[in-house]
Every structure is written in structure tokens, then in C-alpha cells.
């Protein structure tokens, strides 16, 4: 089978490449150097590989690169910089939501997707939104807290989504 020529818009940069028909988006992103997208199971069961695909959180191991042709993709490194982290990233760091950190980029992406559609989630809504992401270290409590804190910070009392 022939490789397919595709274009991906990743974290604001455009990549044109030839993707093997069976190449997953996860492999492709990692080969391009976006190694903040982690591999934990390659079966859609851990969420470590989550990215925003046209604004929606997906497990990139379950998407073929070819299916993502022309898509806009955001990974955790695309959300902020070390000197100017995204409020979610800042909140994760401040609230102890990170231990080994391997699951963290995936959680930040899942949380971003949630807050984009639901800026005032309840605790239960947060827990449900991240229930496809496995974390073996934290017991989830500090992750939930971090997302709550970021939500409060991102949507000030007067309203107006950021």
C-alpha cells in the first residue's frame, strides 16, 4: 500500500508528510517530534496520547494519520510556554496534580476540551470528563482540584470566556 500525502496543522505549524496507511496519528506525531504526546497502551484505554483534533479531545492512538489530513491538532506543548503556561498547566503545577507526570499532557488536553465546552463544570462533570485518562500516581483528587481552580481563573465572575 502506498503512503498517503497529508497535511497536519500542529500547534500552529503546518507539516506536509507522507504517512503509511496504517500509521496512527500517535506514531506520526511522535515521529514529528511531538513527544509530549505519550504512548501508554495503544488501544484507546489510557488517554496518555490525547490531543485536540479540530478542538475535540481524541486518543491519537485510535486515529489513523490519514484520517487527520488537514486537521488542526493541539498537543500539551501547544497550549503554553514555560514562561507563559496555560492556566490549566499552571493550576496542575500549583495543585500537586503531577507526580510522575507521564499522564499529565493527556489530562491537560482532556481538561482543555472540557472547559472549552463547559466553562463551569461540576466536580462530577470533571471526573467524568477525565475518566478516560488513567493516572496511577495521584488518585485524581489534585487533578480535579487543579481543573476546578483553572476554571475559576479562566472565567472570572463577570463572565466572558477566554
Amino acid at each position, binding site marked *: 500500500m502506498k503512503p498517503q500525502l497529508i497535511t497536519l496543522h500542529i500547534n500552529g505549524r503546518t507539516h506536509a508528510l507522507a504517512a503509511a496507511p496504517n500509521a496512527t496519528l500517535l506514531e506520526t506525531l511522535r515521529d514529528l517530534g511531538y513527544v509530549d504526546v505519550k504512548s501508554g497502551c495503544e488501544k484507546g484505554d489510557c488517554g496518555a496520547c490525547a490531543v485536540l483534533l479540530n478542538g475535540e479531545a481524541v486518543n491519537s492512538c485510535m486515529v489513523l494519520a490519514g484520517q487527520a489530513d488537514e486537521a488542526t491538532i493541539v498537543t500539551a506543548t501547544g497550549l503554553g510556554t514555560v514562561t507563559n503556561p496555560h492556566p490549566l498547566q499552571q493550576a496542575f503545577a500549583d495543585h*500537586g496534580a*503531577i507526580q510522575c*507526570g507521564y499522564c499529565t499532557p493527556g489530562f491537560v488536553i482532556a481538561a482543555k476540551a472540557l472547559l472549552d465546552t463547559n466553562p463551569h463544570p461540576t466536580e462530577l462533570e470533571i471526573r467524568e470528563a477525565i475518566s478516560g485518562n488513567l493516572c496511577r500516581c495521584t488518585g485524581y483528587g489534585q487533578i480535579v482540584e487543579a481543573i476546578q481552580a483553572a476554571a475559576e481563573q479562566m472565567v472570572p465572575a463577570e463572565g466572558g470566556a477566554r
Partner: protein
Amino acid sequence: MTELQYIGKPARRVDALEKVMGKAKYIADRKLPGMLHARCLRSEAPHALIKKLDVTPALAVPGVRAVITSEDFFEHSLFGFPVKDEYVLAYRKVRYVGEAIAAVAADTPEAALAGVQAIVCELEPLPGVFDMEHALDPDAAQVGPDRPDDQHPNFLDLLIVRQADPLAEIEQCAVKLDERYSVGPQEHAYIEPEGALAVPTREGGVLVYAPNQSPFVNYGVLAMVLDLPHNLVRVIQPPVGGSFGGKDDQIYQMSAQVAKLALLTGKPVRLVYSREESLISSYKRDPMHIRIRLGADSDGTLRAVKFEGLMDSGAYASESTFTAWRGSIHAMGAYRYNACAVDIKCVYTNNGYYGAFRGFGNTEVCAGIEQAIDELACAVGMDPLDFRLKNCLHVGDRTAHGQILTESVGLPDCIKTVRRLSDWDRKRAAYANQTGNIRRGIGVAALYHGTSLGAEGADYAGSTIAVEQNYSIDLTSGLTDYGTGSRTVFTLIAAEELGVSPDRIHMQRPDTDTAIESGPTVASRSTMLGGNAARVAADNLRQTLDYAAADLLGCELHQLVRSGEAYVGPDEEPVAWERVVDHAREMGLALSAHGKWTAPRIEWDHHHGTGTPYMAYHFASQVAEVEVDMRTGVVQVVNFWAVHDPGKVIFPQGAYGQVYGGVAQGLGYALMEQITYTNGYLQETNFESYLIPTSVDVPEITAQFVEAPFSKGPYGAKNIAEPSMVPAAPAILNAIYHATGKRVRDLPANLERVLLGHDLAKGGSAKACKLGLKT
């Protein structure tokens, strides 16, 4: 003690931003020019002789650069501590499904796989041992190595504790208990699968990046099996994506495989596991069968315990003899007894293999004894929390091992605090006699957990510290932070000792060329051992700086005071810390120091089962509240309280994180994490079948600390990582009993066991496992 500046105060993990920004480079994220990809040929048989192993066809596969077997190593790659029975690559025999037989390095992962498939390997099946209860039958197949004595070769070890005659004592007791419990294996399930990357050096040596727990152990194994002088081996620690006891021997095997392949090919070689490969080939928590006999007076005075455990070590010893020892020491629980006997026997089988996992034997025995104590309290007619409070260890008590506890016993306070936080008495009464389909229950467990290695081995750690050109401070430790937060703990300790801001300090990850050998990163020993080493190193450096400051300020040492980082002398004019550093340099003083801390020597008599097993203990009490659906057997943990005595808390946010994560792992152990070997073939080969708790399974956890300081710990600190998980499972099991009136004595308490009281007969085949080895 003067007011503490950084210890116990709010702080952020030193690696938080790097990780959350996605900048941390784990092993699978490291790619080097010309790097080759490795893959292992693994056994598809649980027990077999290697009849033929021909790797030449693999070498003919395009892209394959090298293939290795046990022949390529010193003494066929034999290693292992404390029992040397394992190989980097199997020699003559395979003992479990998934055991590595040969390793291939190739230009691409695809070529490596093609190479593995081209190897000619003929296995002649041997009868296997799959039931630990029959491992020592006279006609059981030999799994373990030949023995010099007349013991069965499948016998690995027997660990005992002895005090008086418990059976005679129980005979005289008004209330008796004799029950059996069992715990299953548990997978670490770190989200980062294992990996290793080796780079050949110009000098003919090798540099290995490995997410191992104990870089210096890896370093020693590498030098031994590669037959290289130590100075040609270097191990560097990348960030580790979780370990929990799991990234020990398995990573040393992988490191040796890639190191040999790198030496042969002259190129960097990386090996990274798939989740299937990780689950099938890696070791798990040892399963145990337990029989407990207890006796108490009718007023609830606990008098005697006899604990018998049979532990499966699987195909190799790994850490099982140490695990069983820690298990034996804690098997009777944190109570006073007149008489006690513990016997834990470990045996070899062909059910994968078992090694270190958080709690290290205590998690296993605690699940048994803390249910038994609950049952006995019930038989006496006492509230289980009152029963524990009446019999638990206090300062001044003598343990079942004969050790007098002279300090730092926070257990009574932990139990009283968890009672109050959980609203125990009201709920206990409110949930009695329920009849509906959805029932609530509340259960408690108590814990003690020995700090560090104890009498297991030499217990020391080292640290280095140096002031750099730009006035930042480099700090090293020989111990690894695999997610626990120990780098932050060391940073805070050094900052406190030196009186400088933690931001100045760069806590390095271990590198065997620059850090000091510190023993293994196990047994929740980092805070106490590594923390003390960092404290000593920083204190040594501070003395040099104080000396320079006194010289600069023209005063005596005792006249110096600190104002923030600055030094202040008798003329009360603060002098910046940097100026003191400059002055020290002008004086020609060395602005670097070493710190080493060795734990006080303690003795355990293995033959008589008495002595002082640990210098101090962590204490805790946890309460679980559950909701059980009587129609389906579904158990939801709805509330959880954990009160721990880790001594002085150094890094509160991290300590709470350890408790929350530990409880979550204990919840998985109690309710859902099931590992099944069917004739040696693992049935759970990825996360769709090996279920671990998600955010909707883990409730909000309330944690609190009772800080009973330990005089030898840094600032009074003891330990936290392992003990946080240990009592969670029995607390949940006791809560299920309170809700349903039925005991589930076998872990995990899955739907069938809760609903029906027994397992459903399940099929199982070699299929998933064989398929998993091919993904």
C-alpha cells in the same frame, strides 16, 4: 529549634512545570542519530528446555544489525539479588511465558520484529507448576535452581517470627478465630511502559539511560554481566513515568540487553515495551494464601496470633525473600500480644514471576490480619475501632518481635483522629441492620510499617552539593525520584540547612558518574536516608560559608545571625549571601561538600525470629465508606479518610499526593485489579482487561497527618509512600462486610465474590498472551 523556613511549608514540585509543559523527556522520547531498535524473542511456553537456538537466520534479515543470547554475557548473564537465579536472557531453560530468550537490534522496529521471527528456537515443553499449594509436592516439576541442601528445589525461603507459644495461649482464650484469606497478584501498571537506551562510548564502555529505581544497582549488574570495569559503565536516570517497585530487575535486564547490542554494533540501541509486553513479561506483586488464628479474652484483650502464609514467587526469586521478610515482620499487625508465631514460606512456580510492589509484603499480610482483627472484634462483641484502640501499640510497648518502642508512635492518635473525621460512631450505628438493595458500610484498618530497609541490609545514602559560578546550587542524590517527589524533599531540606531559597537549588537526577552510591531506591527510604544525606551535605557546606561570613564580618561564628539568605554580624548590617560566597572563594575555600548518612545498626535473628527489625515505624489508620448494590455486587467507595503518622512532614503537598495515590492503588487491589495465570498464561494483557481505578472509581479522600517526630529522621521525618496504600484494601473489605453482613476473604472483591460469595468458573487460554507477544 528555630522557626522553619521551608520544611512543612507550601512548595511546588521541582519538576512540575517541565512535566506539565510536556518538556520532560522520558525514555521513549529520547532518540539519537543512528539509533537502532531492539526487540526480544520471548518464550511462549511456561516451562521448557531450550532445545535449539539458532540466530543466524535473523542476521540475514535486512536491517538487522545484531542478535544476542545468553552466550554473549559473562556467566550466561546470571544475576539477581539476594538470590542469583535470573538471567538477562534465558539460559538452557525458560520458566515463564514472556521470558526473554534472545534480543535483536535493527534499523527499524519492523526489521527488529522480522529478525525475532527469523530466529530458530525450539522449546521442549516440561511439566509446569501452576498451583503454589503443590509446588513442594515430591513429584512437582523442578522450577527453582538446584539446592545444596535436601530441601525441595521449589522451596525458596521461610521467614519466621517467634514469641512464646501462641497455640497454647489461644487454647486458653475465651474468644478464638481461625480463618483463611487470600490475596491475588497485582500489576504495577505505571502508565509509562519500561524502556532502556544504551550508547557505546569511545573508551569501549557504555552509557545507559534507564528509568530504573536504583541506578547504582543497574550499574553493578551491567559491569558484572558485561564483564566491564565499573569505570566503563555509566547509568543516567531520565524522568520515570511511575514505578511503585516495578522498575527494578526488569529494567536491569533490558539495560544489559541494549548495552550488549550497543557494544556489538557501535550504535545507540533503544528498547521500549508495548503495554502487552510490559504486562506479560514484567513481575507482579506476590499472591499469598493466609491462615490466621487469633485469641482474645472476653473483655477484648488480644492475646495471641498465629499467622501462616504461603507466597508464590513465580519463576524467579527477584525480591520475594525480602518481601516475605517484611511481610513476616508485619503479619501480626500493630498490636500487643503475649504470644506470636509467623511463618511465611515462598515457593517457585511457573506463574510469571513476582517481585517488589509498594508495601512489599505488608500490603499482602495487612489485607489478612486487618480483616481477621475485625472478625475477632465482632466475635468479642466490640466495635472494631474500639478493639483496635484497646490493643494497639503505644510508646513504651514491646512488639511481637521483642522490640521496645521508645518514641514516635502516633497510632493511638491516628485511630482517634480517623474516628472523628469519618463520623465513625454515628455511621457505624446508622448502617447496622439495613435491608434495601443499596447498602452502606463503614470499615477501618490500622497499620504500622517499618522505615527503610531495616535489618534487611546496609542502610545508607549519600549526597553532594556545590555552589556554581552563578550562585546556584547543584545537589545530587544516589536515589531516584520516580514520581514520588523526593527531589523536592531533598531540595527543601538543603534549602533549610543552608538558609537559602529553594529556587537556588538544582536537584539533579542521578548519574552514576556524579552521584554517590546510596543503595536502592526502595522501602520508602528516600525521605529519611536521602533526606539525611542531603541535610549532612548542606550542613557541611553551610559550615564553610559560616566560616567565610565570620571572617568577612570580623566576628565570631556564634555572633552570626541570618536575615533571609543574608548574613548579619554584630554591626547589624546584612551582607548578601553572594558576597559571602565571593569571600569564601577569595579565601580559597572549597564550596562543595559531601554528605553521607548511615542508619543505626539493628539486628534481626532469622533463626529465632526475634530482634529489632526496623529503627522506627510509620503508623496509620484508614476508614472506608462503601455503597454496595446487593443486586449486582457493585461496590462503590463513596468516602475515604486516611490519617497517617509519617513523622514530620517535609513537603505537605507531595505527602498528601502520596496518600491519595496510595489509597487509589489500595482501592484497585481491593476491588478490581485481577491478574490471572491460566496454566502459566496471563489473561489480562492490556488495560481493557486489567482494570485500574479511574477518576470515577476513586472518591474524594480526606487525609490528615499526626506528626510524631522520629529523633533520627531529618527534622523528625519518617516515611510515607508505601504505607499510604497498605491499609486501604482491608478497610474497604471491612466496610463491605459492614454493609452486607458477608465476608469476602479473597482479594479482589469483584462482583461475583461480593454477590455470590465465590468465583465463577472462568475459561482462559493461551491465546491472548501469545497474541500479546506479537503486538
